[in-house]
């Protein structure tokens, strides 16, 4: 694999910069809460600045090549190196992780979860960012694995300490599931390493050598990776940790989880499993495709059965990641492009939905769909943002979600020639049904929560005419501040700052998707060619 070498310090700096913030925070007493928040924002902001500078330096004409390449000795005993690089596939996700962490840090300014202690919370968040960014730049299996696992613990603690009522159950479930996957994944990595003569853990070598492994072995190794990544995605039979984790996690945790963490799994498929084991991928593609489509329908049906808003959004993640996996399973450039776009789009959209859900919970102290009603009257801006995100989520063209779903459907109808065409065409039709169901549950959610008039519980407490918002609002304003009704206010400044970039990104990527396709496509095309060459 050809690489470009210039400005190669920037990735290392961009990845590890949050650790500087962690170090500083370590020596500041926990009582200085504001200072901690400031440091977190500054650190993540600086990280994002480095990320944006990376965007500037990136050579878009050669986005299929790995840039900012560094290859240093790291653990020479096991032939693993500190090998990092960035190409069109990882660039969007790398930047997304930085942006999301920055915005989440800003959001934390006003919305610290109830358990308090911003020091530890923000330190964990910064460590999380290191793990996420590192996973996207790693070009060495062991390095990737290390970063992949670094992500795990902070998230475990975020859920377990700052989560909802059943946080311990949820966090443990998350942890065990992921560890289970990781264990199999590691075995698969090692098997791959030894099957390729134990020369190197570097991606470049493994991609060349992996294709030469015989078919049966490839299938077995792929199985291990499949379980590891599928748990993270999560795909259908491995998905049950997700609703619990999302529901119990604090808002920040949910957002990061949805926006970035889930992508590690799909990224792993695209970056590691498929190019290194083309024949294994070809053998497993129908399975992935079928499970993805089951996930789409199943997630949608799950959504219809929910009574809790956050849980509904969590289930919708299962459905959306199903589209991403369907795209990947086609092994075509169209499908993988769609998957990559879908990853970013889902990150933005579902992240936004979780933000809104968190803010609603903050104000109403409940997310039960039955009890919420008339958000548009009490909080018009919040209601419209929810509507915007819901529309984006159901795949409305012109918003980002569409570009993950639609090309995936196009690709599924025309999969890689080595795959069973009839099967994939059937899957296409079923997946299209999933878009209908998506419209069903999201609009149902929106109609129930945003439309109508606020329920008596949250509106006029002293009057019979509960539908009169202006009246109830002024009444609430006059009310004692200890009353929780005074919490119900529209989107505040901090939320605007944290959300606006999401909203703009959803719109801009939706209107002009070429921004991302242009970066990804050369790299994806190269990758698909490599896979095609590996399939006899």
């Amino acid at each position, binding site marked *: 694999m050809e690489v470009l070498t210039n400005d190669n310090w920037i990735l290392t700096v961009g990845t590890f910069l949050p650790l500087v913030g962690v170090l500083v925070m370590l020596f500041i007493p926990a009582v200085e809460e504001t200072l901690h928040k400031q440091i977190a924002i500054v650190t993540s902001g600086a990280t994002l600045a480095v990320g944006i500078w990376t965007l500037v330096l990136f050579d878009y004409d050669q986005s299929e090549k790995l840039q900012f390449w560094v290859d240093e000795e790291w653990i020479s005993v096991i032939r693993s190196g500190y090998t990092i690089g960035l190409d069109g596939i990882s660039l969007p996700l790398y930047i997304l992780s930085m942006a999301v962490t920055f915005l989440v840090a800003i959001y934390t300014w006003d919305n610290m979860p109830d358990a308090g202690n911003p020091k530890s919370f923000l330190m964990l968040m910064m460590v999380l960012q290191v793990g996420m960014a590192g996973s996207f730049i790693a070009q060495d299996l062991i390095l990737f694995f290390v970063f992949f696992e670094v992500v795990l613990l902070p998230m475990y603690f975020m859920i377990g300490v700052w989560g909802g009522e059943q946080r311990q159950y949820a966090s443990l479930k998350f942890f065990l599931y992921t560890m289970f996957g990781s264990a199999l994944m590691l075995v698969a990595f090692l098997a791959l390493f030894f099957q390729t003569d134990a020369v190197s853990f570097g991606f470049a070598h493994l991609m060349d050598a992996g294709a030469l492994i015989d078919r049966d072995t490839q299938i077995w190794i792929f199985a291990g990776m499949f379980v590891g990544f599928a748990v993270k995605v999560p795909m259908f039979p491995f998905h049950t940790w997700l609703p619990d984790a999302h529901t119990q996690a604090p808002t920040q945790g949910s957002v990061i989880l949805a926006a970035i963490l889930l992508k590690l799994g799909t990224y792993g498929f695209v970056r590691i499993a498929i190019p290194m084991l083309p024949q294994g991928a070809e053998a497993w593609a129908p399975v992935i495709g079928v499970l993805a489509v089951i996930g789409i329908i199943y997630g949608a049906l799950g959504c219809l059965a929910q009574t809790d808003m956050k849980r509904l959004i969590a289930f919708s993640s299962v459905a959306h990641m199903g589209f991403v996996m369907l795209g990947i399973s086609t092994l075509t450039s169209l499908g993988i492009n769609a998957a990559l776009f879908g990853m970013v789009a889902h990150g933005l959209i579902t992240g936004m939905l979780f933000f809104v859900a968190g803010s609603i919970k903050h104000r109403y102290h409940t997310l039960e769909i039955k009890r919420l009603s008339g958000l548009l009257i009490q909080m018009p801006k919040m209601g419209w943002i929810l509507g915007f995100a819901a529309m984006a989520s159901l795949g409305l063209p012109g918003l980002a979600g569409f570009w993950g779903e639609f090309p995936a459907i196009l690709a599924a109808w025309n999969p890689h020639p080595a795959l069973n065409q009839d099967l994939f065409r059937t899957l296409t039709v079923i997946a299209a049904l999933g878009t209908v169901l998506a*419209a069903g549950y999201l609009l149902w959610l929106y109609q129930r929560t945003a439309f109508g008039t606020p329920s008596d519980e949250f509106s006029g407490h002293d009057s019979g005419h509960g539908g009169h918002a202006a009246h109830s609002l002024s009444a609430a304003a006059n009310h004692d501040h200890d009353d929780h009704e005074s919490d119900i206010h529209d989107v505040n400044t901090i939320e605007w700052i944290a959300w606006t970039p999401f909203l703009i990104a959803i719109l801009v990527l939706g209107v002009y998707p*070429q921004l991302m*396709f242009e970066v990804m496509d050369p790299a994806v*095309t190269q990758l698909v060619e490599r896979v095609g060459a590996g399939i006899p």
Partner: protein
Amino acid sequence: MLLGAETDGVVTAGWFLQNAWLIPVIPAIAFFGILFFGKKLPRGGSELGLISMVAAFTIAAGTAWQWVDRVHAYSPEYGEAEPVIRQWTWWQSGGTEFGIGQQIDGLSVTMLLLVAFISTLVLVYSTEYVRGDRRYTHFFASITLFSAGMLTMVIAPNMVQLILGWEIMGLCSFLLIGHWWEEQANSRAALKAFFTVRVGDMGLLVGTAMLLGIFGTLDILEINQLTAEGAADDSKNLLMWTAVALFIACIGKSGQFPLHTWLPDAMAGPTPVSSLLHSSTMVVAGVFLVARIYPVFYVGLDINVAGQQFNLIAVIGGITVLIAALLAFVQDDIKKVLAYSTVSQLGYMMMSLGIGAWTAAVFHIWTHAFFKCCLFLAAGSISHTASHHSFDMKKDMGGIWRKMPVTTGAWIASTAALCGVPYFSGFFSKDEIIDSARAYDYTVFYYVGIIGAFMTTAYMTRATYLTFFGTPRGAAAHFMGVAHDTSHEVHGHAADAVGAEHADDHLPEHADAHDAHGHDAHGHDDHHVSHSRPLPFAKTDSPWQIAGPILVLGILAVSAGYINMPVHKFYWFEHQTESAIGLPIAHEEEKSADGGEGAEAAAVEGEEAHGGDEAHSEAIYSVPAPPKFKWVNAAPGLILVALGFAISLGMSMAVFGRRKNLFAPFVGLTRRNRIARGGHTVLVKKYGLDSLYENIIVRAVAYPFAKAAYWFNQNVIDAVVNGAGRSGKLTGEWIYRNVDQRVVDGAVNASGLVASESGHALQPVQSGKVNQYGALLFGAAAVGAIVLILINA
């Protein structure tokens, strides 16, 4: 980045043709302008919407003018004008670039002009109609985006952009139908509209994927050319399914049977929305899609192949024509009558496309847009000015023609056009459809067409009579200043209607209650005071913003058809648009007098055309030429129309106008007597009560069918939709409860349980006592040592 800047080598395209893509872009930008700055503007953003739409219309007009020039530059051989295509890279995959841009040809020019023009008028109308609404700004933002969506779709050079516009319209219809979302009924209607259309969209997504699979491209022009050249003949079966899938989308969007149920519910939105939705945008989108990639349907569904009496499009269209017309008979809500009428007319368009009469269908889109928009606006005008925001023809209307000359005149002109009265616009298009069905040997659809025309006339006559003539009732009586019986007292009625189905009624109610944005709410009492000035020659009619557009549209309802008059062998419109069909027209030099055989011959020849190389060398398919007009052929339809008018008017007067007759003898008396001579005089005279007539006559003839159809509609189709939704939800719940929470999650929990149980089993070991720990430690050490010894020994 420019994919195909100038595809035309022969004739250079003018500025307007080159830059027609600005037409949707301007309203789209205006949408954001209204959204972000609308509330700060003196007129709440409506001026932005209006300006943008006028600008769009101006460019559209310029485009149309230059297109006409261009066609003439290509002449004298019509049908050759190349479309003006510009595309910019929108997204790419695997090196293939997909564009966004414009494809300007006859069809898109027609639609651009139509949409921009009608949107402009509707916006003008809305400035008065929704004045004082608490979401005035949002209304204009949505409606502007809505038009932008339609315009985007109309100029789409490829399927993806078409889907973009298509779905934006879906979204805006959701927002606009649910404009007054405080009422659950309204938000449910919005949900229903979006969801039903979305069900159809599934077909669009899959169909598009199929197109990519067959042709390897999504460019409409390429798809049309490839199909016409027979490139898809190897995968004919797949092409057939593609056509079916795409047509499912059209069924949903255009309210065709059996997915038409959302359309009448969509009346929950404000009237300007209904008029825009039902005339030139949204519902027409489905017809447009079929027309846009007509070769796919034509070849895929074997249209005009000899011996094929039926095909999917024609059958669905035909069914829709009849059932919708039947349903229109039993509606009391004027907007619902018009809604079913729209469904029925869309059925005509589909049927027309289904029998190979492309030009007739597109021309019907054109004429229908004007008169249907006019009818809706007139209905809104009545409700706004005369009937106190009610749409109930029986309770709150009647006899208002005296005070509302403009509205009445325009309504009657539009109704005449809708019914197909000669030399009104609808006549030219509708008659061509019916005539084509006859000429192309689709006998069944010929009868469907003329029966449909008969029924259209009948129900429109009934609606017209109820609305404008007879005794003023309820709110209309109040408006006319006529004494009326107190059981229909206005305020009593208004209060009573709060919980009823007429959403518009709630406008002032809520405007009072939620005056959060500081608008001037127009309540019941100062209702007339706050209106703008009326037109100078119609003082008692609606204000000029309302009456003006109605007047313009009324005139166009008469005259819009004069650009294509087969009666006078004047085919101007056809010549401008025929290049957009995608298939050549098999013009015959000597068309035989008998149109039926001629068309058949044409179809056969079209099949064989690839043998004889003519002007259209590549295309092996072609559509038959429109039949030559003959009064003889039009006569049965016209006679039926006249008959329908006569019967219905007589019936209506007998049924509804009896009391009116006592007060002011009316023009239709003689005809009523003629009906009486026809055998019903006995009934009319015997029972003096209106309701009784209605019960006997209507129940005896139309009611059972209509009622049955409506019942079927409400209970079977709707029940299926609802049942599907409910069973989906139940299935979801069941799976969630049993599979997800028990099996999948259960397996996970079981492993946790095993660990937990074994932990419990071992728990006594952790007694917390030092001695026991010591015992364990040493015991274990001893045992370990023994084991080691045994192993080593």
